């Protein structure tokens, strides 16, 4: 029932926010429904985390991974949630709810001229959240493919929402590259099904694939896996297929960026993560050894591109590429500690990155430009946005004692324990470069000198940038109330998660690692 409700509520909200009369109706419906979804997701996570503990060892988890773990299944049989799915659902619901509340004030201000368009925004928003919730809950891989495709299609019009030349360009790149990747992945999923048939099984679910994996013909599963990694890797933003990502994640309205960067990439990466144990236990296990290289390339490319950005939303977008790489590296290291680290990183990245984009949105509302150079001295113009930006930059770069630092530390420690020194060394170097890059830019924006000069230039800038950024008058530096609220909630979580991990989340992560079947 919970599972059906989790999917039903956002769909209902999409219909209602498109049709219900009243100027505030779409916002109200979306916030109410996303809070309900968050509550249900919390309940689901609690239940999954509270199940009887598994007998510690990794080996038993693999053996009992399919049958030994309590799985909440719905009546239809298409939906099920184990620990890993519950974790992703919780994160989707979290960003979905906070971004919905943030949207209320943010979109009202940035869409003041044509309030009618808000309906389109909220209808798409709810479908987008629905599709992301469905990815972890649906157990049939080809149906998962369809929901991944649906995330692209429902968010395309959100990316282009501001209808500027740049936003349209970003949306077009986003759509074409993501759909191209999806086409490649589709053949991968069909091959996966053929591999399952060849292994003499017909239960086309994640669990069924894992059971049948040792009997699958190696060329089929290897080809299927590579096609899916390339195809969905495009959508996750793994280098060198990341080119669309900074465009789309910088041009969309900020709450949408929080969804795109914070959770959409992760929920697609979830599909690749699900496939990893299947490939590792199949005869084509050698293919999985390429994954650390894929991940490291992403981390490295992103770390160096971070240094030369000029647009602060692109800064955070590149940091998403970096973090997806880190998660992939951690997931493909062998030990259970590394897998725990990977999922911990998923959790911390989602919480921190959505907060970063809320902060970036606050800065954008205050200064109405996305350019790093002309934001310098933000601390004097909008202290709240500046403080949030500073915290976000520190947190996402991985400064101690914030959340991302802990998860990255867990991963590096696990890598060292396994003796993968080269991988760990490269990872550490790239993370350090990225940290330096992020803080360099954030520091310039927050404390940079010459705010008078920037103010004098502002008229020129505005003319030069014309289409860039949201047109908001400079006088309105105070942020909308809902934005303040979400900055406080997000910031508090970023700090608290760095200081201590609630035991419920720790259990959830442990159960998720076990359910992952590693």
């Amino acid at each position, binding site marked *: 029932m919970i599972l059906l409700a989790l999917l039903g509520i956002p769909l209902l909200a999409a219909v209602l926010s498109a049709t219900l009369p009243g100027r505030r109706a779409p916002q109200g419906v979306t916030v109410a429904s996303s809070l309900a979804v968050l509550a249900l997701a919390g309940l689901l996570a609690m239940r999954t985390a509270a199940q009887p503990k598994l007998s510690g060892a990794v080996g038993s988890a693999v053996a009992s991974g399919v049958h030994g773990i309590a799985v909440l299944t719905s009546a239809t049989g298409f939906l099920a949630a184990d620990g890993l799915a519950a974790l992703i659902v919780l994160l989707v619901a979290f960003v979905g709810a906070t971004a919905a509340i943030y949207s209320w004030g943010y979109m009202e201000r940035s869409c003041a001229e044509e309030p009618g368009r808000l309906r389109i925004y909220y209808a798409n928003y709810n479908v987008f959240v629905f599709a992301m919730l469905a990815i972890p809950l649906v157990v049939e891989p*080809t149906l998962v493919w369809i929901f991944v495709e649906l995330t692209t*299609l429902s968010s*395309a019009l959100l990316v282009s929402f501001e209808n500027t030349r*740049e936003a349209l360009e970003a949306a077009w790149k986003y759509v074409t590259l993501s759909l191209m990747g999806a*086409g490649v992945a*589709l*053949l991968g999923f069909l091959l996966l099904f*053929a591999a399952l048939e060849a292994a003499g099984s017909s239960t086309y679910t994640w669990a069924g694939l894992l059971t049948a994996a040792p009997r699958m013909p190696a060329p*089929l599963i290897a080809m299927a896996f590579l096609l899916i990694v390339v195809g969905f890797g495009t959508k996750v933003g793994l280098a060198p297929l990341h080119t669309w990502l900074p465009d789309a994640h910088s041009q969309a309205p900020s709450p949408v960026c929080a969804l795109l960067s914070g959770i959409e990439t992760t929920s697609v990466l979830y599909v690749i993560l699900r496939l990893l144990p299947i490939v590792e236990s199949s005869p084509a296990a050698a293919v999985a050894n390429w994954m650390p290289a894929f991940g490291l390339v992403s981390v490295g490319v992103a770390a160096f591109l971070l240094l030369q950005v000029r647009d602060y939303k692109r800064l955070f977008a590149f940091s998403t590429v970096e973090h997806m790489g880190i998660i992939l590296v951690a997931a493909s290291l062998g030990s259970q500690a590394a897998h725990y680290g990977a999922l911990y990183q998923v959790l911390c990245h989602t919480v921190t990155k959505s907060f970063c984009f809320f902060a970036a949105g606050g800065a954008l509302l205050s200064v109405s430009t996305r350019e790093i150079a002309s934001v310098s001295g933000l601390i004097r113009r909008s202290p709240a946005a500046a403080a949030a930006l500073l915290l976000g930059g520190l947190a996402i770069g991985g400064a101690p004692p914030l959340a991302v630092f802990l998860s990255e530390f867990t991963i590096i420690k696990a890598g060292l324990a396994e003796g993968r020194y080269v991988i760990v060394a490269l990872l550490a170097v790239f993370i350090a470069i990225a940290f330096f890059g992020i803080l360099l830019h954030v520091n310039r924006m927050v404390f940079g000198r010459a705010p008078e000069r920037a103010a004098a*230039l502002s008229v020129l800038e505005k003319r030069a940038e014309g289409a860039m950024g949201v047109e908001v008058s400079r006088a309105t530096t105070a942020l909308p109330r809902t934005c303040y609220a979400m900055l406080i909630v997000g910031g508090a979580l970023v700090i608290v998660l760095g200081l201590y991990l609630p035991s419920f989340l720790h259990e959830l992560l442990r159960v998720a690692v076990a359910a992952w079947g590693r």
Partner: protein
Amino acid sequence: MHGFAAPSLLASLNALAGGLFLLSAFAMLATRQVRGCLLLFIYQSLLLAASAFLLAGEYGSWHLAGVGIVNLISKPIIIPWILRRTLSSEVYSRREIDQVLNIPSSLTIALLLAILAYFLTVPVLGAVAPPFRSANVPIGFAGLLLGAYTLAVRREAVPMLIGILAMENGAFFAGIALSRELPLIVELAVASDGLILVFVTGVLVRTIQHRLGSTRVGELTTLREAAVPREGEAA
């Protein structure tokens, strides 16, 4: 590769459909007319449906017949209809003068891609396919690669969209030969997904046309690192 002992009539017809399918993928790359591109896509979808029916006859599989019917309805009929509804007819009468590469070199690269597709699928065929299927898998794979390549070299929005749809056609052309029991719900869902895809992309293209007065999306290249104006930089 497998040496057909006595190919049945259905198998020969299927091989013919496969050959024409590949030809249509090449032609899509070479056509300058937007309308011609759409027509070629319709032919290609018909050939995909034909191949599904032939395989269905060969195996006596209702699933594959279902795939054929869904394809026959959605792609040649509904998708062009949606495109015509969302986009003005002006878009279709366009000619694309310059692609990223000129057409002869494009076709050469496409030929290499098709050969690559054949060699990439050899191990896959060795693993599962009975001889009868050996036409569909490499051709479908080639269709996928050629669709992606079309997407890469085209600059006009509608041919790019058709490139995406052709990729899906290619994936399914291989897919119908790979697995007989693919649940029909998957095919139905993929088909409806294709409709949403065309609708959303159509709306996006229409907005681009209204806003920029052109559907030459290949010219949208302002977003990159160096693009942000430098005047504001603190010296």
